[in-house]
């Protein structure tokens, strides 16, 4: 095992979609058991950076990349890295709740079953712990067999978090997980994120400065594909070193 300091480190990462240069020479790291917020105006490459971390961008045929992304010290784009294994270790929650059109139970067991868990008792246990961690167990424990799309929007998103947690990944990527939800559901999920950071490394994409302030420990500010600032969230928001960061925080760009 190579030595490493953080679960995920990014070294000199540049990406392109076709001829379009999206990320420009990004170097940063994500500390364990913290929430790192990736902030920036729309179209600055936040989501691209996030989706590069679990290689979801590989689906786009015109995607190209230079630089390294290290997960536990090994390059995830390196030869011999299994993308399926990687994604098992790096979970993801999407912007819009996207539960599978099947029962709540099947939604949570989908991941573990893929990775070879067959034992009925173990699956039951995984469902309970994942749903408990996502603060959803009490609301759905009596209707585990009902179809997931019948849940409310906020419940669906928490189910998606439970689904991501079901394979027990050390890292959790979240792509604006509350932007499609009502304020009350959003607040619940923010609370949940703060709770989850005790056990997980969380990387949160957001364009909401207040949210970043509330939940994150460190923050990266991206602007037009460049990493403008990368530091403690408090420091960035209270005393931005760059005028572009200040403009974003005060709402002049975004």
């Amino acid at each position, binding site marked *: 095992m190579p030595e490493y300091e953080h679960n995920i480190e990014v070294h000199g990462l540049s990406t392109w979609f076709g001829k379009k240069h999206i990320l420009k020479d990004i170097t940063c790291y994500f500390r364990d058991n913290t929430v790192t917020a990736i902030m920036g105006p729309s179209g600055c490459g936040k989501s691209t950076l996030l989706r590069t971390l*679990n290689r979801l961008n590989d689906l786009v045929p015109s995607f190209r990349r230079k630089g390294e992304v290290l997960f536990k010290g090994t390059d995830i784009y390196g030869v011999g890295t299994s993308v*399926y294994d990687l*994604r098992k270790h790096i979970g993801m929650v*999407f912007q819009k709740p996207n539960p599978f*059109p099947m*029962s709540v139970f099947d939604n949570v067991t989908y991941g573990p079953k893929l990775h070879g868990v067959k034992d009925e008792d173990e699956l039951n246990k995984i469902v309970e712990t994942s749903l408990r961690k996502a603060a959803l167990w009490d609301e759905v424990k009596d209707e585990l067999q009902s179809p997931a*799309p019948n849940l409310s929007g906020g419940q669906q998103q928490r189910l998606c978090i439970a689904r991501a947690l079901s394979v027990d990944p050390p890292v959790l990527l979240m792509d604006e997980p509350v932007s499609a939800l009502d304020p009350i559901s959003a607040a619940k999920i923010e609370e949940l994120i703060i709770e989850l950071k005790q056990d997980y490394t969380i990387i949160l994409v957001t364009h909401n400065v207040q949210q970043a302030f509330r939940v994150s420990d460190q923050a990266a500010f991206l602007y037009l594909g460049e990493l403008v600032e990368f530091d403690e969230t408090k420091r960035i928001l209270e005393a931005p070193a760059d005028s572009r960061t200040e403009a974003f925080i005060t709402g002049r760009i975004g």
Partner: protein
Amino acid sequence: MTMTEENETITMQEEEQIHSWHSQLLRNISKSLHDFRMADRPGKVDMLGKWGLFIPAVASTLIIVLILAFLWFESVPILVDPSGGPGIVVSPTWDPNRDLFGIAIFIVGSLLCAGIAIGLAVPLGIGGAIFLSEFCPMRLRQPIKMIIEMMAAIPSIVYGLWAYLVLVPIIKNNIAPITQSPTNGLSLLAGGLILAIMLLPTVVTISTDALQTVPLSLREASLALGATQSETSRKIVLSAALPGVGAAVVLSLGRAVGETMAVLMVTGNSLQIPYSLFDPTYVMTSIITNQLGYAFVFPLWRSALFAVGLVLLIMSICFTLTAKLFIRWGMKTRGYI
């Protein structure tokens, strides 16, 4: 005296009922006419549209009822005749010269033929659809889909000709010798195969469309959990699109039992129940087409053929309803409705 009085009261009551029924109808009509007169121009257009569209909507349901009624009246003679009766659906002997009109052979033949066709066309078609929608390079998808859609436009008689000249000899010379069954190639297998080929385009195109409507976000969620692309397409995309794929199966089921020409040309049309794939068989549509001309002047014979048509229609209605129920159940467990 009392009798007439009673009669009179009854008639009066009846008249009153009729009268009230009439007046209600009149009131309804006059009310809608009044509404129509008082409405502004867009409102009038709306109302006209509503009434105008009501007619085709009712007509299409009426047609099915009328066809059922027509087939029923035409098959009554055989169903009430001592030599026929409802027992014909289980009696295996069809011999109009001796007034034996058992149609079980045709029912079995049709079911087997359609069964083989569906059994081949549905898995193959769904497989093709998954390839087209999930694995096929974008540039190839449209051309391939277009070619498959063209297959659906080939007249069934052309399929029949091709099967007669190509498929039947292949079965006779290449496939049957494997099991050493004696056959001239005109067989249940030929009918099932040609039907399967004819059903494929329907299954592929409708299933592809259904798979394509599954949101990309579901595929991403599955992949992000570490699923491979084939796991994702099987367990998530296909499952999410199952109601749509079910609709494709319903459509092809209807066509499978109802298809006539191609099957007529290659099944051998022999009055026996097939015991192997290489035995000739006789399907329901074929017996009607073949014998209606001779049978027209013999009421019982003719009526028996209409009874075959009636059974065919009832069968296809039953298939469709069962499939619809299944689709409904699928939609419910997926939270679509």
